[in-house]
């Protein structure tokens, strides 16, 4: 049995990963997994393109995939967590077979942080899992420099970011109603992209 992955320096944070994605893909539709991840995205930049999941753990990638299938011209990001992806690993071959350009970002702090920091199964090699499932590219990053340098070619692609626990609070809860979120994303998804 291979040794579990460790993040010795805990250099990266969820906030940095979210900010990097927003800078790289300002027009992307982003489906964020429930808990602190959706709150982080909301507080970083409350864009109409953000689909904040408040429940349905494990569903950020399938919902993002549905958006990507419906709007193949758009960049679609599934902002996932290690616990969420582990709950629904069968999504990997599903995304791989879809032929979409989905960017699957897995922010891996090795824990269920939103519920109090309980451990997930163990830190898993999501890069190897994604490539074995058929993703066209997958990259693991552990530092800010690696994050900035990460090259993700045509999707489906997976970015596995090893992060440490939060050092500050989780930020405000999403204030939009679920219906408002749907309406905003639908409008944004159907707006012409430059």
């Amino acid at each position, binding site marked *: 049995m291979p040794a579990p992955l460790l993040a010795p320096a805990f250099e990266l944070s969820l906030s940095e990963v979210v900010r990097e994605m927003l800078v790289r893909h300002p027009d992307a539709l982003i489906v964020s997994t429930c808990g602190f991840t959706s709150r982080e995205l909301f507080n970083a930049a409350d864009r109409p393109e953000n689909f904040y999941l408040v429940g349905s753990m494990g569903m950020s990638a*399938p919902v993002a995939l549905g*958006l990507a299938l*419906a709007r193949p011209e758009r960049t679609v990001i599934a902002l996932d967590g290690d616990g969420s992806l582990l709950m629904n690993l069968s999504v990997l071959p599903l995304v791989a077979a879809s032929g979409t350009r989905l960017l699957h970002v897995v922010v891996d702090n090795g824990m269920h942080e939103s519920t109090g920091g309980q451990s997930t199964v163990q830190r898993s090699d999501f890069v190897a899992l994604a490539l074995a499932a058929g993703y066209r590219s997958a990259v693991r990053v552990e530092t800010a420099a690696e994050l900035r340098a990460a090259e993700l070619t045509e999707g489906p692609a997976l970015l596995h970011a090893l992060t440490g626990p939060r050092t500050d609070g989780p930020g405000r809860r999403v204030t939009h109603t679920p219906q408002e979120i749907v309406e905003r994303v639908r409008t944004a998804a159907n707006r012409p992209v430059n």
Partner: protein
Amino acid sequence: MHTTTVGSTTARDLLHSLVDHGYTLATGVPCSLLNGAFRLLEEPGDDARLAGLRYVPAPREDSAVGIASGAVVAGERAVVLMQNSGLGYCLNVITSFNLIYDVPVLLIVSWRGHDGNDAVEHDVIGAELLRLLDLFRLPHTVLDPADPAGSVSTAIDQMDKEQRCGVLIVREGI
């Protein structure tokens, strides 16, 4: 035997009706009662009307509902085909996503165990299917094999009116 020949008239009419209602995406997990529909989705052949209905096989029914929901959020029409056993997997997504965000997805659900004479694994869900749907106020219609288009229209009308996932129940194999 629940299997039918590829492209049974009922299955073809059902799928044509979905296309006529603007459906562009079908996903799901197979059931022998829905074999004809799945075969047509996999192999539409030269049926031009089916060309616009993209089929995505899913590993599990809850992921299928997730995919369909993403497409509906984008403004498309999407349908999920599954056996009634798959509803169990879907309950979390339906109750914590579709019924919270008001994102209705059409579900075509086979009714294994409806008469108590099916394989034993279908006994429990088969006996309670309609009560399960009623519990979450999911509008449902039992497919009339003699009028698939009418049944599809009824199911979609109910779904649109209530803005909740609509369920078209398939009791006999198509």
